[in-house]
């Protein structure tokens, strides 16, 4: 299917091949690692355009190339599958507000969901949480699926300039400057949620302070290594 705008490459163009392959792989990783259930999606920005590609009404674990869709930030259909996901404004509004962001995951992660409805916050207690602030990710308190630009903008406002936002009784939205970084953060947010849950059984854990996180922040991050590992775990599924 040809794109509706001549200045933007099509989903199946060689130009976007690597990006779309990675998008599909990232959805399968989130499924395989137990972060997504039948819902959720990953979005990637089309380089240099006010447009993004995501998956169209299919579970992340079932996604194939013919289920990708390209839209602009106003929700206009540009290419690919006909029906956009209900919550396309999550991607459109965050990409619009955050020019540095390349990829967004929206999941119903069990661990994000649980901390979205607890009075106690999900906070870093492992250096995997170094991408978060010491008091943890904010919670978007709006109720209802993010199906309108208005809600999308509210969500982007709750995210601010952060890496992740929990969504009340719903899940999370996690952003990255690459697909690999988005995957690292989304999987780690789930791990941190689980570890917070385990730790709280024993009383108040000794969370990492802002100063301690800063020490880790000076250290290197390795999103490519995690990506390579997750892909290796997918192999058995794909073969």
């Amino acid at each position, binding site marked *: 299917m040809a794109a509706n705008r001549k200045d933007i490459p099509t989903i199946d163009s060689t130009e976007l091949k690597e990006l779309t392959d990675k998008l599909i792989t990232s959805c399968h990783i989130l499924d395989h690692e137990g972060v997504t259930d039948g819902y959720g999606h990953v979005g990637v920005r089309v380089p240099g355009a006010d447009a993004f590609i995501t998956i169209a009404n299919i579970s992340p674990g079932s996604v194939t190339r013919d289920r990708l869709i390209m839209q602009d930030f106003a929700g206009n259909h540009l290419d690919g599958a006909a029906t956009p996901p209900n919550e396309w404004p999550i991607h459109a509004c965050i990409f619009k507000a955050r020019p540095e962001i390349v990829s967004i995951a929206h999941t119903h992660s069990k661990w994000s969901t649980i901390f979205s409805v607890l009075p106690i916050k999900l906070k*870093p*207690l*492992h*250096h*995997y949480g170094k991408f978060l602030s010491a008091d943890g990710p904010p919670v978007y308190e709006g109720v209802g699926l993010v199906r309108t630009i208005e809600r999308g903008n509210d969500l982007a406002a709750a995210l601010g300039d952060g890496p992740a936002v929990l969504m009340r009784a719903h899940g999370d939205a996690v952003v990255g400057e690459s697909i690999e970084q988005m995957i690292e953060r989304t999987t780690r947010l789930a*791990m941190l949620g*689980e*570890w917070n849950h*385990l*730790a709280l*059984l*024993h*009383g108040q*854990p*000794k*969370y*990492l302070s802002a*100063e*301690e*996180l800063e*020490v*880790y922040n*000076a*250290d*290197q991050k*390795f999103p490519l*290594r*995690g990506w*390579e*590992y*997750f892909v*290796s*775990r997918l192999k058995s599924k794909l073969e």
Partner: protein
Amino acid sequence: MAASDYKGPAFDSSELKELKAKVVNACLILDSEGITDGFGHVSVRIPEQAALLTIAQVSPGCAALDKLVLLDFDGNYLGGAQPAPYEWPIHACIMKARPDVNSVCHTHSKWSALFSVLKKGLRPAHMYGRFLPVGGAPVYPNAGLITSVERGNALADTLKDGAATLLRAHGDAVVGASVEQAILRTVQLAFLGELAHLAAVHGGPDYLTEGELATFAGDRSFPARPWEYFLSRLGERRV
């Protein structure tokens, strides 16, 4: 970094063949037993040398014979894949301080990470914990990856003459007189963590006393038996 005066077997020599396979299998075991995620490493001392073999910036679950690196205790590169892991000082500094140690495992084990931020520590509630002090494994209290000899020495100081130390908000470092023993202890440490956590649901375990632990400690452990078992569970992944 001083030039190396390493006089041991070359990286590609047949003398190192067996040790190389052992390190790779040890990494794969920690992955398949659910101890490591995308991070962590296992090392082995080169007999009679101030040098070690470990994996080179690859996930333990993706370890392979062509992803090993040979380093001296100052971090000098002596052969194999590059670059060396960022936290090579964990291995070098502990082996330097502990002539009895021939293998070191560093993991981000969920259970070690958990107890590293709890106030009461990880204490033995099962005879598998006979390699631990009755008061529990010590905790290296500092933030930051162990990327310098200074931090490596501080970690070795925390470990002292023990078998395992937790690393605050990070994971653990576990040592053994052999790779088999280091692996067995690492797996058992995770088991002990899970057990202590489960017992906490019921009000906390009746931990082993000093006297009880000493009785168990009088028994010998059989690291070769679980090693054979773990290898069998690797199936076709083993090298």
